[in-house]
């Protein structure tokens, strides 16, 4: 299969980016999207050596060897099986590309048509500044978790695991919410760049369990305040997050977050 790629290139955080167009040929339909980018990068590296060969024979300047244009396309990736949450590209108008319930690394080229134009952009949101090309800084999501997305326990001194029975239904719902991989697709998809599904998933996961209920309202308050502070937008119930979540996390979790928020406002600990 052959494709025309339009890739966002940006040398560093402060540089002005632009789209660069690349032609890539003979891609197997079984190839994954990231492997296709690997192939492109390999070609860019080899091509840049050829370029430099030309330039060195002309004026023996080594500096052209490392001209930014020849630098391979930077993109985040790690586990390549859809669980680490490291990869995330905005492909033809959809985070993680044109399929449901997958991450970018689980997208295969057979999902495209031969000769397609593919536009690849980084996640766009104020709290996700671009580091280079398609790599963005998502540490804002960590900061939200640090604001309270945990149960306050210290090692040791906890009761036996079976001391508190948890209804299977609650445990299952908590598990569904907890399957968030923190990739940021919800933020990327949201027209408001809101992290409500991310926050909602964590708040729900912990609020559904008796261990997490203790701090539930307080947790919701702290995490939402942090989210606002970091410059994420707010939810306008568009549910693009739900549509694009690679782990199919439901918007019911946002609803539960709202409920916790109201509880925090009016509840006993609502100061």
């Amino acid at each position, binding site marked *: 299969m052959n494709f025309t790629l339009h890739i966002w290139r940006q040398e*560093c955080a402060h540089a002005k980016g632009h789209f660069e167009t690349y032609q890539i040929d003979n891609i197997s339909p*079984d*190839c*994954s999207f990231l*492997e*296709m980018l*690997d192939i492109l990068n*390999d070609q860019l*590296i080899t091509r*840049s*050596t*050829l370029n*430099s*060969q030309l330039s060195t*024979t002309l004026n*023996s300047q*080594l500096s052209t*060897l*490392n001209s930014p244009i020849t*630098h*391979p396309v*930077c993109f*985040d990736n*790690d*586990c*390549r*099986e859809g*669980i*680490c949450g*490291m990869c995330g590209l905005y492909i033809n108008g959809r985070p993680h590309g044109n399929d449901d319930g*997958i991450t970018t690394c*689980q997208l*295969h080229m*057979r999902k495209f048509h031969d000769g397609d134009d593919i536009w690849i952009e980084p996640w766009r949101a104020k709290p996700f500044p671009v*580091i280079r090309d398609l*790599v963005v*800084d998502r540490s804002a999501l960590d900061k939200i*978790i*640090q604001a*309270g997305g*945990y*149960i306050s*326990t*210290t*090692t*040791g001194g*906890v*009761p036996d*695991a*079976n001391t508190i*029975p948890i*209804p*299977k239904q609650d*445990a*299952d719902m908590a*598990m569904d919410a*907890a*399957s968030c991989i923190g990739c940021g697709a919800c933020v990327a998809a949201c027209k408001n760049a809101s992290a409500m599904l991310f926050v909602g998933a964590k708040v729900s996961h912990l609020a559904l369990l008796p*261990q*997490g209920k203790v701090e539930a309202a307080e947790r919701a308050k702290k995490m939402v305040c942090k989210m606002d502070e970091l410059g994420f937008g707010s939810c306008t119930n568009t549910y693009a997050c739900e549509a694009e979540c690679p782990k199919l996390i439901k918007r019911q979790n946002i609803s539960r977050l709202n409920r916790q928020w109201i509880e925090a406002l009016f509840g006993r600990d609502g100061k």
Partner: protein
Amino acid sequence: MNLDSKIPSGPLAEKWTNYKASQKLVNPANKRKLDIIVVGTGLAGASAAASLGAMGFHVDIFCIQDSPRRAHSIAAQGGINAAKNYQNDGDSVERLFRDTIKGGDYRAREANVYRLAEVSGAIIDQCVAQGVPFARDYGGLLDNRSFGGAQVSRTFYAKGQTGQQLLLGAYGALSREIARGTVKLHTRCEMMDLVVVEGRARGIIVRNLVTGDLERYAAHAVVLATGGYGNLYYLSTNAMNSNGSAAWVCHRKGAAFANPCYVQIHPTCIPVHGDYQSKLTLMSESLRNDGRIWVPKKKEDAEAIRAGKLKANDIPEENRDYYLERRYPAFGNLVPRDVASRAAKERCDAGYGVGTGYAVYLDFADAIQRLGKEAVEQRYGNLFQMYQKITDENPYETPMMIYPAIHYTMGGLWVDYELQTTIPGLFAAGEANFSDHGANRLGASALMQGLADGYFVLPYTMQNYLADQIYVGKISATTPEFDAAEEAVRVRLNRLLQIGAQATLNSHLSTLNSVDHFHKALGKIMWEYCGMARNTESLNKAKALVKDLEEEFWKSVFIPGTANEFNPELEKACRLEDYFELAQLVIDDAMHREESCGGHFRTEHQTQDGETLRDDEHFMYVAAWEYQGHGQPETMEKEPLVYEHIKISNRNYK
């Protein structure tokens, strides 16, 4: 080299209790004055940092990804073992200990494994308190499943995402400590060197992966929790960024490396489908419960399938070779991981492979006929779905294709009972150390070990070391040792970047290649000649090929960009440079171990039915290797394994 394992005296079951009762502690006021560096944020690293931070130590934690939650512990599917005996099926600490020792083919240290089994229950308590949503039964109590190598159900699980949930639990605890200010998080930082001052680990040099800056961090102790080196084989179930470099730079600085040849190969992975492939995806081993493994009986059929002229379903029953059922009639498709893996390789090497030639069929047609499609869907639905997503083939209609792949490395930095390496002040935890799994790791034990080390072992044993360190005062990062280490890293990076430039000057450019090109080549060599089955001949060949490849690398690798920017190619090049040395050591270790045990299979040493043949008389020891400089053969010292408690027998699952 001092290989004192520091195993406490006394009966096995009381060793850990005795140790804790008599070890040195640090008082709360002094904890604040002690700095600890933790490298890696997986299960072991995150749990250690969280626990140490909560105790009051000042911790700096580092990871190469953009968030601690990306560590590859997150990909573990199956579950975590613990001797809780919730199922009342006769489980106990003793039994978990015995299973683990036996599973490791009698190549693990008794005291360490016993301690692991002992703290396993507390891990589950800890995780539940953190909000890990383990599977539960309808009564609301914790559910268990059974796993390979055990006769009891002791595996706790959270769907097929146990590793993820445990890591998120530890990540939560870590985040809490970060918020409290006891732990400082450094993301997108790669450890480039260990700084040793007066024989003690006193700090690290890291490269900020965003800016390329080299930074120094000083501390009273360093914990390495950087995982295994499975990516040495390029194609593995490890994540792309998993690497062995942090452990390797410590090895260069004097930490002994133990049992590097013990690598685990998982039999049921989705096979390689092309040269461009970057990693392999694991399919749960449970598939072998109902699937039947086969290849065509006739070579011409296999060839026709590979050429796309025939489909699996075109091969009539009588022309199918159910080789596992044929070779191991008693166990059939349920032979242990290593046996199943080797048998698949044997068939494919003989030319009977399907797909690209390196795959065998895992057929559910019989199971569907016997149980009905619905029952099969109930058991394996999500796995089938995952398979279909990746391969675009419907496993309900055509047989799945599977092939073994590198999965886990039992070898790692040598550590004593306190998890301290041969460099005082340098500790290693999780997959990065060698301690608990012997020559083979049982399923659902890696998570257990990582968390045991981080939550319940290091927070105790490190105090024993740190108690003396309160007199040292703050460690300075401006000493000549730090200067030298940083300079060495700078030289190293420049040297790598210069290769392409040099080649340009000498104008043999047509041969310039990317880092991945060499990594793939190295992986192929290692997989082919030092993979599932090894022998003197193949190892010799591997050694020569690796050496040639390394020379080629230093002549013609091209790394674009500079050291002062975000440059993934440079990161990969550094890791590959270390892999070349590591590969040599793996080969040397495999060569010297003239026996077969667990994940290490020497074709010269096997029983008549192709099982591993141990040589307890000569090889019941841990091989600890000491670095002697680049290109120099490493020296090996033995730590004998003494089994006082357990009776040694053949590892027999029949």
